[in-house]
């Protein structure tokens, strides 16, 4: 299949209205994050909340703006679990080693 044909077939995609709603949602979450910055939360709590909100925003951008929602599901299955697996591996291997090094730091 030619690339032109792919492009033509690829997406009905989201409407302008839907994209606008997604964009407003992204801006709203951004302002929610800024509002949270006013609250003097503990760094670990703040970091956890911000990561969750950022993952939600990333999901919105990938689903609608990057059209992943409208691609074949096999693509999602091919890309996303492998990516999440690699990120989990980073958490598993970075943190214990990093905390071990912290114990060795001279006081």
């Amino acid at each position, binding site marked *: 299949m030619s690339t*032109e044909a792919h492009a033509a077939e690829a997406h009905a995609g989201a409407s302008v209205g839907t994209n606008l709603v997604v964009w407003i949602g992204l801006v709203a979450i951004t302002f929610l994050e800024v509002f949270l910055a006013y609250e003097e939360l503990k760094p670990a709590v703040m970091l956890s909340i911000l990561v969750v909100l950022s993952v939600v925003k990333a999901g919105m951008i990938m689903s609608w703006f990057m059209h992943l929602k409208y691609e074949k599901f096999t693509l999602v299955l091919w890309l996303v679990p492998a990516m999440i697996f690699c990120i989990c591996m980073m958490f598993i291997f970075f943190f214990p080693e990093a905390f071990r090094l912290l114990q060795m730091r001279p006081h």
Partner: protein
Amino acid sequence: MHDVKTEAALESSWSGGKSPFAMGSKKLGMWLFIVSDTLTFSALLITYSYSRLTNPDWPRPFPIFPAIAFSTTMTVVLLASSLTMVMAVMAAQRNDRKKTVMWMVATMVGGLLFTGLHLTEWMNMIFKEHFTITGNPEGTPLFGAVFFGITGLHMTHVMIGVIYLGIVAVGYGRGKFSAEDVEVNGLYWHFVDLVWMFVFPLIYLMSVKY
């Protein structure tokens, strides 16, 4: 003659001569690049998160006003440029070359504005507040390496994105590039936006000066 199972296999998406993901190779290549670049930024941000939580003397150089207001403006500008890119891709799918180029130029303006604001902030931090890559007056020197490293890598992506947008806009306007090229360009631009959705809260909002 093939048996029934072989016939079924030959008709499947994976038998060759077809595109299993129903997309062109350029778009698939861009998705693979995005996954690899996601892992690069993930490694940096995970390392940053560890450093942030384990250093009690982490500097907090960003007061709500003007620093956080400034970086929030940068975020909104980048988000707005993502919306104009969405409009460019939609126009390209309608084969409306004039509007596609117009929206792509609007996206470039957003990217340039973001870069300008970011450089202004960097200059302020370096020359007025004396934050460098190796030290700062407020706390652990690690902050400079993390801040300039991560935001610098992101800014490099934005600048490359602006150049990429310019090339595709000119090519598409002249009829050399297809709607798929605009869409692939859009994937890159949205990815740059997506990365900032992590950089802004983790780097800036985690270091607010109260």
